[in-house]
């Protein structure tokens, strides 16, 4: 049996389908939540719901401990989890307590002894083929996988509440603030992003102007962050944010791999760069060869003149 660790993100359903395509019975576990009717339609007959009032107020160590107690009880052959930060951290704690290995960010999985895996390294820079030898295979599944739902719908999905005793309670949440409704890099439909080629903090004014007209936000490369031109929350890339907008407009950004892996899943990529040989110019869908500070003002002007007519 394979146990899937789900949350309420859309990616969770991909992980479920991916797990079902491995050809073994699949059960689900959530940290609260989960819709049994929907799971029944997807062929899942058991939902383990870890419920503990305290869980949300403790660090992921407590979630990991709870998850391990469930694993010990239901004894799956493998555990496939969504790869959100929170669930990954819980899986790492479970693996640590159990003294088991953990393979994170998997995209291909073959069960067996050992399990054969392909995992994503460096945010998508490279793929690693690996073997996992363990009594219970613990995996997190990278975003963007898919699979065919192996099982037809079942009549009903039984919900089994699971309330473990927790000891990993040293780290406690003392404050929580929710995000405002403003657009972020992760949700913006358009990102006008600037790198070293923008030249200065003030140079971003024209990027802001263009982003405003396109209903988007401004992003940047690590050079811009390191120079103090932009806050780190604007940084796209391996150690910044991974973005997937409709349009990624990269201005004066060369396209180092660590930047590329953060923007490569954008629907359309357009590059503005003085260097026609820059990697991002070659990999983009569209390119303009030229100076950011000549090209961008001209685009803004063109948009404004068309909107007047």
């Amino acid at each position, binding site marked *: 049996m394979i146990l899937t660790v789900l949350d309420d993100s859309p990616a969770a359903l991909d992980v479920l389908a991916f797990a079902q395509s491995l050809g073994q019975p699949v059960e689900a576990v959530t940290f609260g939540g989960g819709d049994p009717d929907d799971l029944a339609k997807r062929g899942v007959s058991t939902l383990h719901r870890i419920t503990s009032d305290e869980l949300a107020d403790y660090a992921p160590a407590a979630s990991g401990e709870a998850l391990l107690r469930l694993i010990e009880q239901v004894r799956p052959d493998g555990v496939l989890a969504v790869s959100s930060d929170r669930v990954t*951290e819980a899986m790492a*704690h479970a693996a640590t307590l159990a003294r088991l290995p953990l393979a994170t960010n998997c995209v291909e999985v073959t069960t067996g002894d050992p399990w054969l895996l392909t995992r994503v390294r460096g*945010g998508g820079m*490279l793929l*690693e083929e690996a*073997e996992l030898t363990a009594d219970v295979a613990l995996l997190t599944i990278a975003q963007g996988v898919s699979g065919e739902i192996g099982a037809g719908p079942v009549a009903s999905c039984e919900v089994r509440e699971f309330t473990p005793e927790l000891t990993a309670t040293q*780290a406690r949440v003392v404050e929580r603030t929710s995000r405002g409704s403003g657009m972020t890099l992760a949700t913006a439909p358009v990102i006008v992003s600037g790198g070293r080629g923008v030249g200065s903090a003030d140079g971003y004014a024209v990027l802001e102007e263009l982003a405003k007209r396109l209903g988007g936000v401004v992003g940047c490369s690590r050079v811009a962050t390191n120079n103090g031109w932009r806050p780190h929350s604007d940084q796209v890339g391996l150690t910044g944010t991974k973005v997937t907008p409709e349009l990624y407009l990269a201005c004066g950004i060369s396209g180092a791999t660590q930047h590329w892996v953060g923007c490569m899943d954008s629907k359309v990529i357009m590059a503005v760069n003085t260097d026609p040989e820059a*990697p991002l110019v070659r990999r983009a869908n569209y390119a303009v*060869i030229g*100076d950011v500070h000549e090209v961008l003002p001209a685009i803004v002007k063109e948009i404004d003149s068309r909107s007047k007519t």
Partner: protein
Amino acid sequence: MEVLVCVKRVPAPGAKVPLTDDQTEIDTRYLGHTIGPHEECAVEEAVRIVKAHGGSATVLAVGPAAADEQLRYAIAMGADRGVLVDVGDAELDPEATAAAISHAVGDTRYDLVLFGTESADASHYQVGIRVASALGVPIVGGIKGLELDTAVDDGAVSLRREVADGVEVYRLPLPAAAAVKEGLNLPRYPSMPGRLKAKKARIDVVPYTPEPGGLRKVRLRQPNDDREEAIVLGHGADAAPAVVDVLTQIGVIA
């Protein structure tokens, strides 16, 4: 305040990521190396903590002898001393890396142990958690804000992180650990005196023979990149009409 920072030596590839002939490593013959960016912020934070509260900052790297370069960089940033756990050239799995760190720490007591949330190359997301568990201290990851409270008995640390719908702040009694993310602070560039000090600093080398864990790397491969060459819309300001045509066509201008 005794602070330990664990850093990893990682390759710094450019636009391409070349592989060795046997496809098991990044070919680093023509590449530079660097401290993982998350860990660079951890070093910066440790230096600031020591400046504010006294004590000392130790940096530790598990890796080849060449990781000396990264330890000296951290010392040039202001760390006090370095420990190199020399495990040779082969990449370790996360269980083995964590065991190597725990071995080197031994009985030394640190008030705060800092890691990067995940390494920039292998991205395993677990070494800090495994070490914290071995040392018997609590840990939270993804940290972008850190505040020490030395007014209470043994001290405590508040750790702030961004989550899907906002911000969470945790409070941990010391000794504690945190796995941090880039954005925690803006790391300084080493000063000239810092570089001179680092050149002469002593690095303690701890030899260690790792036991492999249950995850074995077999080989690396490049992801598919089936993008076609870009369509060049024009040069300079003259390209603007063609650009706006495309923006309209893909629906980002009404």
